[in-house]
C-alpha cells in the first residue's frame, strides 16, 4: 500500500498532536482542580485512533473506552465541547453529566466513551448490525484494550459479528497493561489477534505506534467490511506513557526501563521524522506552526469551557427519559 497523500499525512500528524496537547492540558487542569473525577490519558497511543479513523468515512461509527479522548478527536469531535464536558459545564457534550469517561457525539458517529471495560463492544456491534439491516455501506469500529479482550463481551460480540458478517472492525489497543496488571499476566496467548482464528476471521497484528501501518490495516479491514465479508480483528501493539489514570495517588507497577523503550517509539516523532525525511516535505517551521495552531485550539477550548456556566443543580433531573 502506498503512503497516504502528503496532505493526509499532515492531517494525521495534526490529529495526533491535538490528542497529545489536549490531554497534556486536561491533565494540568485536572491537577489544578478544574477537571474532576478520573482522567485516563491516551498519550503514546495516538497513532491507533488516528490511523483507524483516517480510514473511515464521516458516517462510519466508532465506540470508545474509558480512555476516550483520542478516539473522540480522531473522529472529529469538537474540542470546545469536549473540554467543556471535562469542566463539567452546560455546553459540554453531555451537559456536564458525563465527564471524561463518557464523551459522546452521536452526530459524528462517536457512540461514546464507556466506563465499563468491554462495555461498548456489543453496543457498537449493534451499530454494525444496523448498517447491515439498512443495506448501507457504513462500518462500525470497536476500540478496546488488552484487558477488555479477556472479558466475555469480546467473545460474544466477535462470534456474532463473524457469523453474521457484520461490517465491523475490532481494534484492540494492546498497551501491555490493564491498570496495574501487565498483559503478560492476563493474556493466555500474548497475541489477542490469535483469537480471530476461533471465529474464522482475519486477525491482524500491527505496530500501533506506526500510523501508516494502522491506517493500512484499517483500510483493508474497512474494504472487507464494506464488501460484506465481515469483521476483522486488528491488534495494535502500543503503550501508554502515563499512569493508568491521572489521580495523584495512582500506583504504577511498570518499570522506567519499559516506559523509556516505548517513549523512544513515540508515534508522533516517528511521523514527524518521516515527513521531514521526505525531502522538502516538512520543515521545522511548518511543524512549529502546526503545533502552535494545535495549542491555540486547545487554549480556545479552555476559554470556551470556562465561559460556559455550570449546569443548574436541578438539571440533574433532566434527561432521564427521551420524549
Amino acid at each position: 500500500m502506498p503512503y497516504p497523500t502528503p496532505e493526509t499525512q499532515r492531517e494525521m500528524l495534526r490529529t495526533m498532536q491535538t490528542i497529545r496537547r489536549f490531554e497534556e492540558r486536561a491533565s494540568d487542569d485536572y491537577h489544578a482542580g478544574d477537571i474532576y473525577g478520573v482522567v485516563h490519558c491516551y498519550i503514546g497511543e495516538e497513532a491507533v485512533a488516528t490511523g483507524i479513523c483516517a480510514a473511515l468515512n464521516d458516517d462510519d461509527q466508532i465506540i470508545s473506552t474509558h480512555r476516550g479522548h483520542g478516539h473522540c478527536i480522531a473522529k472529529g469531535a469538537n474540542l470546545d465541547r469536549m473540554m467543556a464536558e471535562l469542566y463539567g459545564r452546560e455546553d459540554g457534550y453531555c451537559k456536564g453529566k458525563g465527564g471524561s469517561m463518557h464523551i459522546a457525539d452521536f452526530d459524528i458517529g462517536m457512540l461514546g466513551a464507556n466506563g465499563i471495560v468491554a462495555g461498548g463492544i456489543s453496543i457498537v456491534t449493534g451499530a454494525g448490525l444496523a448498517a447491515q439491516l439498512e443495506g448501507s455501506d457504513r462500518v462500525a469500529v470497536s476500540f478496546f484494550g488488552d484487558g477488555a479482550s479477556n472479558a466475555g463481551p469480546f467473545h460474544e460480540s466477535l462470534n456474532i459479528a463473524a457469523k453474521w458478517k457484520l461490517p465491523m472492525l475490532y481494534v484492540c489497543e494492546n498497551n501491555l497493561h490493564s491498570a496495574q496488571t501487565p498483559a503478560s499476566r492476563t493474556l493466555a496467548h500474548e497475541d489477542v489477534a490469535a483469537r480471530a482464528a476461533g471465529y474464522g476471521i482475519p486477525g491482524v497484528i500491527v505496530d500501533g505506534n506506526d500510523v501508516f501501518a494502522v491506517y493500512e490495516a484499517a483500510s483493508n479491514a474497512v474494504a472487507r467490511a464494506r464488501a460484506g465479508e465481515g469483521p476483522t480483528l486488528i491488534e495494535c501493539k502500543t503503550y501508554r506513557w502515563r499512569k493508568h489514570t491521572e489521580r495523584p495517588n495512582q500506583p504504577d507497577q511498570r518499570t522506567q526501563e519499559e516506559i523509556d523503550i516505548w517513549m523512544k517509539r513515540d508515534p508522533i516523532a516517528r511521523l514527524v521524522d518521516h515527513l521531514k525525511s521526505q525531502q522538502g516535505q516538512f520543515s521545522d517551521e511548518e511543524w512549529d506552526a502546526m503545533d502552535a495552531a494545535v495549542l491555540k485550539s486547545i487554549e480556545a477550548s479552555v476559554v470556551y469551557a470556562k465561559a460556559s456556566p455550570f449546569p443548574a443543580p436541578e438539571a440533574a433531573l433532566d434527561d432521564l427519559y427521551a420524549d
Partner: protein
Amino acid sequence: MREITFAQAAMEALVEEMERDPKIFHMSTDAPDALVEKFGESRVRATPIAESALTGMAIGAASSGFRPIVDWRQVTFAFVAMDQIVNQAAKIHYMFGGQAQFPILYRASVGGGGRSAAQHSQSPYSMFMNMAGLKITLASTPYDVKGLLKSAIRDNNPVIAFESNRLAGLKGDVPQEDYTVPIGKAEVKREGTDITVVALAWQVQEALAAAETLAAEGVSVEVVDPRTLIPMDSETIRASVRKTGRLIVADEAGPTAGASAEIATLVTEDPDTFSCLKAPPKRICALQVPIPYSPVLEDHVFPDRTKIVAGVREVLGIG
C-alpha cells in the same frame, strides 16, 4: 370482541407493530416461528446464546435508528446481560446528556408455577426498579399486555416488559382494532370500599378471585393493578387507599426490597394517605427463598387467592 390468550395477545402486539414499522427487528436465542414466518430470518434473528451481546447490540442499533426487540425469555437468563442493562441501557441517555434515543423493548418472563426450580423461576422486577432510567411494564390481562407492549415498542426509551409465566394461557377480550395501554397508568380492576389490594400480574387474577369470595361475606375489596412499575402511578394507588383506609400488596415476588415494599411506602409516606390508614399495610408475597422444584414446596412458596382472602380478613380483623 374476541377472546385470545395472554401469549397470543403479546404476539399480536409484536406482529402488528412490526408490520407498521420496518425499523423494528427481533432478537432472541430461538426465533419465534410466528414472527419468522411473517418477517423472515433477517428481521427475526435466532442468535447465539449471548444475551449480554444481544442486550448491548440493541442499544447500538437503537441509536442508529432502529427499534430493536430483545426477548430474554426467562428473566433469569437476563442476569448475564445485567451490565448492559444497568450500566448501559439505563444510564446512557442520561449520561450522554440526552443526545441520542434508545427505543428498545426487552421482554422477559417472570414467575413460577412450572416446577422449573430456582434458575428458571424468579420475579426480580424490583431489582430493575431500583436503577433509574428504564420503564417497566407488568401486565395482568391479555388486553393490557397487548396494549402495553405496543406502548413499549413505540416508546423512545428502553422498556422492560415483564410477563408472568402463569398468565400465558389466560384468556380475555382483546379488540381487533389498534389500541395502546399507556405506560404509567394504573387501573382499578374492581371497585370496592373496605380495603385496597394492589396486586401485580398473576396476583391481579388471584386478588379478583379473592374479592369475589369476600364479596359473598359482605367485604368489599378494591383491586388496583399498577400495570407499569416504572413510572408508578402512585396517585391512583393512594386515592384508592384514601378511600378504603386499608392496603394489601399482593406480589408473586419475595417481599424484601420488592415492588411490594415500594408500593407500601408510596402509600405510607404520603401524609394525606397516611392519615386515612385504619390498619398497617400488609404484604402478601412469595416466601423469601429461591423457588424450589417439588410441587408441594413450590406451591407453599407462592401467594394465592386463599392467602389473600386470609390476609384481608386479618387486616379487617374478621374471622
